[in-house]
């Protein structure tokens, strides 16, 4: 399980992988050169594809974003400098989308981490039926996001949905609400759909972290007379921190890019438009390539800044990932 190498300070492998100690000194330098050459040849195709299809378009996007360019004007473009960015940053739409995306990410990622940790602890217990639970928990991962959105949409349909139905039968509030037609409720459904689909991912990463904590540590705690809660707070959580941070990073990056869920559930209505959706709308629906590109570059920068902050302050372990992988 490579997650072990992703967690700092506890790498059973790593060092011995680096060289090839059994080789004789005589052949080493020649083989080294051959290996480096082969390594270059083997990585080059992937790097070239990624550079061509990621770096080049992003460079082109930056260029497009500095131009007034619309599909309607049939390719007529005019250099406008930072005008598209200034307009975007001065617009109400951008800041609403920005705020909503962060609200969504904050809510869904924190729920996923809490539920994911609980699920991981549960899956780590030895009990009959653990295998069944593991399979069941994994099922939402198999569903595509668009279908996940449709599933939650059907559950919250006015009158015909399961949740609205049950709520109104029990006389609870929420039964007569058009969930996807009001801001707070719509956001709640979007968050639930995301939590449902991706908590398994967080749970599995955290479970992998849980499984490298040694049984002796728990035995020692038991000898010390620690209660279950003390053991959890003082041992499990601190040792689990790297795994939780890792899950948080992957989930946050994903949540900040959210597109499918609001697209299917609300089409961005009722203040649920995300940054990616706003850029898409300008580009595809309003046919404004320059503005759309500026918005997508702003989205890109936002995600980058957040990932840098994460790596700097929250996750020293990501730097260790790079080191370990050497």
């Amino acid at each position, binding site marked *: 399980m490579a997650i072990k190498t992703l967690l700092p300070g506890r790498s059973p492998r790593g060092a011995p992988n680096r060289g090839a100690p059994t080789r004789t000194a005589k052949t080493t330098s020649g083989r080294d050169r051959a290996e480096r050459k082969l390594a270059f040849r083997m990585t080059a195709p992937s790097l070239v594809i990624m550079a061509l*299809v990621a770096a080049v378009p*992003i460079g082109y996007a930056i260029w497009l974003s500095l131009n007034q360019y619309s599909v309607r004007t049939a390719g007529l473009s005019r250099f406008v400098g930072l005008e598209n960015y200034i307009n975007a940053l001065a617009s109400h739409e951008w800041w609403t989308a920005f705020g909503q995306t962060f609200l969504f990410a904050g809510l869904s990622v924190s729920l996923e981490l809490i539920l994911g940790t609980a699920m991981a602890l549960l899956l780590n217990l030895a009990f009959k039926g653990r295998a069944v639970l593991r399979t069941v928990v994994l099922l939402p991962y198999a569903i595509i996001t668009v279908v996940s959105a*449709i599933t939650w949409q059907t559950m919250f349909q006015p009158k*015909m949905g*399961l949740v609205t139905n049950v709520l109104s039968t029990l006389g609870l509030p929420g039964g007569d609400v058009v969930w996807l037609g009001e801001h707070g409720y719509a956001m709640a459904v979007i968050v639930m759909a995301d939590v449902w689909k991706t908590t398994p991912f967080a749970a599995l990463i955290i479970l992998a972290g849980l499984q490298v904590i040694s*049984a002796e540590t728990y035995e020692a705690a038991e000898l010390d007379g620690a209660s279950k809660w003390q053991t959890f707070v003082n041992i499990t959580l601190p040792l689990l921190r790297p795994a939780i941070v890792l899950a948080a990073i992957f989930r946050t990056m994903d949540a900040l890019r959210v597109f499918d869920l609001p697209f299917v559930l609300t089409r961005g209505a009722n203040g649920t438009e995300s940054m990616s959706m706003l850029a898409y709308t300008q*580009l595809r629906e309003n046919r404004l390539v320059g503005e759309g590109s500026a918005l997508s570059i702003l989205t890109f920068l936002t995600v980058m800044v957040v990932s840098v902050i994460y790596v700097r302050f929250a996750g020293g372990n990501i730097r260790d990932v790079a080191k370990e992988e050497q």
Partner: protein
Amino acid sequence: MSTLTAERPTAELATRPKAPKRRLRGESKLHPLVWVFVVAVMAFSLIPFYWLVNTSLKKGASLAQGELFPSQPTLENYLVVFQNPEFLLALRNSVIIAVVTTTVALVFASFAAYALARLKMRRKAMILTLILSVTTFPAIAIAAPMFSIWRDIGLYDTLLGLIIPKLTFALPLAIYTLTSFFKEIPRELEESAYMDGATPFVAFRKVILPLAVPGLATTAILVFISVWNEFLLAVTLTTSPEARPVPVAIAFFSGTSEFDQPLGTISAASVIITVPLVILVLLCQKRIVSGMTAGAVKG
């Protein structure tokens, strides 16, 4: 040994090599509250599936009232879906896109991953960081310029025009997952191949690759699921049913207004494309788990 601090066990753990995974808790002596939690988790995972299937089996009044059990279950919605040429076309498109992207990504990624896992190489850490950073790109940053470029060179609204950008996101996922699988293969095997006079590439092709088949299969499943699932590139770079894959077709199935949705048919279509993936997850559950945690890259 009386106070319990976080530091002590950590320090102790660092000096201890490997420990067995089993907890000291005895089997099946669970607190009743834990069982409540087990049931809650199961319900949370399964009830939405139930409702989707339930909705797909209903029509007319039964659908409008939101019956908890379909009083007159009907397969009509499924028939409608299978008679819809756009859905069948989308299904074909998705299969082609996912199979081609997965195959190509696996071939290139297995080379790169082997070099990164096993060979001596300059700037390895930098290359890995770069590859990892591609996975954090928001797809919209690629989609916007691709939309313009593809329109100019005629790849807009074609299958190839979708496969190429999807490959960019499939490659880093595959490289990361495969790198950790290659690392798990014992080094001695290559060493003995070297002894027999094999070159590093021959050692890779004849010794390592056959042993890596389970890892390759796992990676293929993960990449396939993620390509099948991808939506933003698919919706930005296509416009006609001829190139639209399943997620986009389903998203546009929903009609224009929230209130006149063919909910039964959409649910049926959703069930149809979910069943194969659910079967895949049921069959390859262990592999998917090991792949997700090995690469520790987005699901």
